[in-house]
């Protein structure tokens, strides 16, 4: 039963990977956009003279890149490359491969996103649970309206406001980048502290917004859970309030939150891309932004594919963990 469940989930993951690759391959070709030709024209324009042999050059490059072969051959070559995480060369930074650029940027995004998602999920769920709990301190009720309002704001907009307040008006924190301009990336305490300082504002703008969402969801679930008979029974048995709160209410109310987490990851990531752009944070979002500016199709495709696969994999892991959190699930066909 367990194995069948995991296999099915893994099948869905493979399907996502294949769909992402296929989308990446066919969408740009549907538009009839010729990246080699337009790039050569652009270069010729930069050089300031009109090249007469540009058509022949295009054909030559297309032969080298295999673009003159039938579409299905190109598709198979592409899938083969993607399977080995080979996304070709970056057009804008030529000698570098797309996979290298992504490997440089990915740790930044993973660290920023992993920390902020875990923190906001934990804080938000706890806060939401307390907000629904009648014995919680009264002042917590005042947190509701700001949480609601924050929850409706896009991450990057809050980022702009926070930057102005905490980096421009009161220069507490650095405005831009992932580390100071002069710093050399190394595994030292100084560099680590520098990186941490630069990460505070981007992280804060994600955490403040996301926490509100988790708190609202958790509060809703807690209200329903606390109405259940087994909670009344637990109270009647004379169990201590913290036990009822944690082991009876939170334990059950957290389950839909985890399901929501799997669904929310995509949105959080979309938002984080923009946060990185606003702060010039050296992660996937900024890489993508530069690639869009420079019309670097291979980098754009590589980033989008990598992110979709990474997210699909995270969802898969969450799916596998889920039956362990909720033992009922493995007996049901999902």
């Amino acid at each position, binding site marked *: 039963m367990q194995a069948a469940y995991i296999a099915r989930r893994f099948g869905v993951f493979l399907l996502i990977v294949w769909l992402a690759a296929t989308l990446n391959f066919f969408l740009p070709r549907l538009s009839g956009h010729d990246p080699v030709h337009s790039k050569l024209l652009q270069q010729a324009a930069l050089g300031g003279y009109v090249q007469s042999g540009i058509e022949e050059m295009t054909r030559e490059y297309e032969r080298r890149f295999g673009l003159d072969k039938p579409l299905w051959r190109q598709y198979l070559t592409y899938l083969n490359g993607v399977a080995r995480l080979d996304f070709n060369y970056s057009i804008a930074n030529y000698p570098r491969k797309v996979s290298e650029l992504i490997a440089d940027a990915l740790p930044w995004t993973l660290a920023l996103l992993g920390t902020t998602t875990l923190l906001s999920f934990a804080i938000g769920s706890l806060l939401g649970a307390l907000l629904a709990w009648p014995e919680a301190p009264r002042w917590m009720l005042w947190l509701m309206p700001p949480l*609601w309002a924050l929850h*409706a704001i896009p991450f990057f*907009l809050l980022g*702009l406001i926070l930057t102005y307040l905490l980096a421009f008006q009161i220069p507490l924190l650095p*405005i831009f980048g992932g580390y100071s301009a002069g710093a050399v990336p190394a595994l030292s305490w100084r560099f680590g502290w520098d990186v941490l300082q630069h990460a505070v504002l981007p992280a804060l703008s994600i955490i403040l917004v996301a926490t509100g969402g988790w708190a609202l969801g958790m509060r809703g679930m807690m209200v329903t859970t606390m109405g259940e008979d087994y909670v009344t029974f637990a109270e009647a048995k004379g169990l201590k309030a913290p036990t009822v709160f944690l082991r009876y209410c939170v334990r059950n109310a957290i389950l839909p939150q985890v399901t929501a987490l799997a*669904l929310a990851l995509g949105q959080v990531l979309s938002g984080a*891309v*923009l946060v990185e*752009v606003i702060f010039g944070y050296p992660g996937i979002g900024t890489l*993508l932004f530069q690639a869009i500016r420079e019309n670097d199709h291979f980098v754009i495709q590589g980033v989008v594919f990598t992110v979709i696969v990474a997210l699909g994999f995270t969802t898969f892991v969450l799916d596998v963990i889920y039956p362990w959190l909720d033992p009922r699930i493995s007996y049901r066909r999902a």
Partner: protein
Amino acid sequence: MRAVFRYFRRNPSLALGIALLAALALFVVIGGILVDTEDARPLSVPTLRAPSWAYPFGTDRQGRDLLAVMIAGTPLTLRIGFIAGFLGVGLGTVLAFIAAYYRGVLDTVIRGIADIGLTVPGLLVLIIIAVSIKGTLTVNQMAIVVASLAWLYPTRTIRAQVLSLRERGYVEVARLSGMSGPAIIFLELMPNLLPYLAATLVNAVSAAILASIGLEVLGLGPIDAPTLGMTLYWVNFNAAMINGWWWWWTAPTVIILMVFLGLFFLTVGLDEIANPRLRRSA
């Protein structure tokens, strides 16, 4: 009129949402009369002036009057949201009813696509679509690009609603009395879902605006249109924050905040109409 106010007192979120959006509408309508929106084009006013009586919102580096930009751009951004939102909810509703009412293979396929599509980060797929389109986008094309994913979430949630509705007694009675499938969908199910559809629509509009602003900030928007997102793109492009040109980003930020907060409180208010059980728990 008095009844409306009494209801607003019971449902303050709805009142707040409507008030915020009405304020925006007034701003655009009155502004459109008083201010020449031609000044939203580059090179029409002196550059980089801080707010003053002549230019209440200041001017940007390319010589746009930011007040005129806001008056011209707010409706454009809302238009993208509404076109994409309506297309998304419309398509989503049709698919959801087909899936949930007729079940079977179609249901499995539609649900599968919606489920998988929702785990994928929407903005990135939109980026691939926007990059693949030749040349710069117009505002309407932008709306269609955003709409291409806007149906996923409505399909999923409306389907769940229809699934629970179709088991109700009155649907059973209608079926037994020989009503056809489409008749049941339009005469029995649809009217009961209307408040829910309205809440879903507002949600979809909000999500579409968010997606369009995201694309615009990344530089994939309609370059020559003065939408709110494009204004933020120019803010970022010219590093207005570091240079201390605070008025440049304040105006679009405040208006975008009003749009999102207004739509959010509107959904909360509509949710309360659609789902009265929430009232007891709130």
